[in-house]
């Protein structure tokens, strides 16, 4: 979509090349953006990546499938659980293995908690990008509680390696579900705080509504996924539309894909309405989709806990470290908090994959940034980059 807008330059100014990053407070890690600016107006943004490249995929070709799980943690380090899940499911698809009922619900609980934790960072850091510090700490306060829960199940707070091929490394400790229940109960009212601080804040709306417009066509063309795609009004979520091995995980769950349909979001009657300034596909909508997905995830965790309690038997048996993989090639995408995270695996029959590959969701989401930032102001650049919610660890791997 190209809408030609004419701006009259008041004074002849020379274009200036400015390096935003790799050491910049609001490029979410080591992203480097080269801005071509004319005064405050940005005429071109060139993202440069690779500052966090750690050869994760190559390492994956020298380790067994289960040994590579800790490396997936370090890709999207804000949602390590979901990364683990993606890889585990890909290997399970190759092995044609189905986790038992109890393990399936355990995975839903953990994956959705991971989604909440990740969206909390996305939301808080977005506040930081727009110059307000407090929501960040409010978000981290709640994220801490989720991390405490994670710590109890797996002993780690960032790099969990908990969900693994074949199920999970351990069952929930006794009393954990009650703690999780208590957390969710106190978390629900906190969401209103976030809405008061950000979503409905007049300045926040001014800064995000109508900024960084990403049309549905463009989002699809660039391969954007996750909240970025759904924020543009595309009704697509792998939990519903993905491959059977992944969608079967969510079978029997009652949830709706968060996406604007006929001017309304599911569940939006309890939450602030869309402001009139906001246009579908702008930063505000991407942010709002994440906020509603958090609510969605709470519902899913609650359902999963009930189902987990009702089920019995094994939660899944982790695969042996050196177990041989069947010959073949698989590729599986899962809905991680930032979009579709794909893992590909080619096996020649040994325990070590011949090829291990990851499809980054943030990489595709980041690729629209030069398109979105054309003609915006410098202050909009962090607002747009922040709304894409990228994690450099996943892009560079």
């Amino acid at each position: 979509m190209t809408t030609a807008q004419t701006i009259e330059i008041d004074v002849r100014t020379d274009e200036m090349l400015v390096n935003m990053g790799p050491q910049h407070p609001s490029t979410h890690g080591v992203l480097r953006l080269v801005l071509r600016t004319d005064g405050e107006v940005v005429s071109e943004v060139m993202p440069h990546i690779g500052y966090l490249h750690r050869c994760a995929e190559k390492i994956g070709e020298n380790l067994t499938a289960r040994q590579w799980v800790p490396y997936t943690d370090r890709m999207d380090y804000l949602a390590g659980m979901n990364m683990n899940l993606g890889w585990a499911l890909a290997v399970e698809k190759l092995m044609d293995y189905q986790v038992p009922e109890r393990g399936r619900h355990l995975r839903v609980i953990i994956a959705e908690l991971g989604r909440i934790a990740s969206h909390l960072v996305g939301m808080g850091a977005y506040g930081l990008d727009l110059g307000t510090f407090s929501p960040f700490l409010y978000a981290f306060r709640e994220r801490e509680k989720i991390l405490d829960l994670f710590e109890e199940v797996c002993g780690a707070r960032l790099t969990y390696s908990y969900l693994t091929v074949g199920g999970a490394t351990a069952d929930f400790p006794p009393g954990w579900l009650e703690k999780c229940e208590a957390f969710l109960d106190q978390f629900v009212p906190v969401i209103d705080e976030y809405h008061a601080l950000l979503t409905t804040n007049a300045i926040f709306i001014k800064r995000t509504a109508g900024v960084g417009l990403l049309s549905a066509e463009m989002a699809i063309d660039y391969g954007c996924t996750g909240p970025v795609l759904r924020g543009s009004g595309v009704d697509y979520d792998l939990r519903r539309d993905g491959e059977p091995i992944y969608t079967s995980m969510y079978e029997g769950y009652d949830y709706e894909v968060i996406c604007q349909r006929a001017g309304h979001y599911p569940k939006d009657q309890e939450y602030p309405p869309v402001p009139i300034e906001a246009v579908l596909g702008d930063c505000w909508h991407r942010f709002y989709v994440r906020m509603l997905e958090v609510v969605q995830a709470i519902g899913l965790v609650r359902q999963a806990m009930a189902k987990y309690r009702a089920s019995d038997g094994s939660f899944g048996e982790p695969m042996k470290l050196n177990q041989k993989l069947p010959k073949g090639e698989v590729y599986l995408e899962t809905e991680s908090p930032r979009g579709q995270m794909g893992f590909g695996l080619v096996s020649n029959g040994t325990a070590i994959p011949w090829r291990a590959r990851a499809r980054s969701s943030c990489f595709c989401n980041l690729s629209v940034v030069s398109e979105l930032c054309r003609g915006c102001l410098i202050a909009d650049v962090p607002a747009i980059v922040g709304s894409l919610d990228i994690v450099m660890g996943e892009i560079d791997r």
Partner: protein
Amino acid sequence: MNWTSCLFLLCSLMAGGFAVAVVLSSNIVRMAFYLVLSLAATAGLFFLAGADFVGAMQLMIYVGGTLVLLVFGVMLTAQSQFVQMRTSSGELLTALILGGALLVVLVSTAINVPAWQPTSNPAVDSATPVITATPIGMALEGYRVDQLTQPDTALRRGMSGYLFPFIIVSVHLLVVLIGAAYLARAKRPVVERMR
């Protein structure tokens, strides 16, 4: 040595010294900075001469407004990081000689007029504050509250008020505002911006 002389010396040395620095500096932003200091010291001289209102005005309009505009202009038109435009030494020498001659003429004139020599009985003692803001305001409205002792009736009756110049200046400022905005507009091809 009394305090007025002392402060006068301080302010005048600053004003004069930084004015010379403006001439000698070749970096335009430094020139602007020296000019700021020079004009601020001049404002100090105004305060010292009992012109509070004009002094504050000098600080506000000149230093705070005009010179910020000037620096803004410098930055907008800077091609390289620190603009330097040197003058040839011959030109500088000629200018300095002529300037020196001008200075000599001006100073000798000032010194040779007896009426301008320091007076022993000033109109107001230097320790007494003079109220200037209200009389200036009244004068701009056409009332000369400071002219009540004026023997000339025409002057006393407010004929020496400044209402007319005040209005002319206001209109002038408006015209300048519009004119400047018009002049600074670019006649440059319009830039297409796409989204």
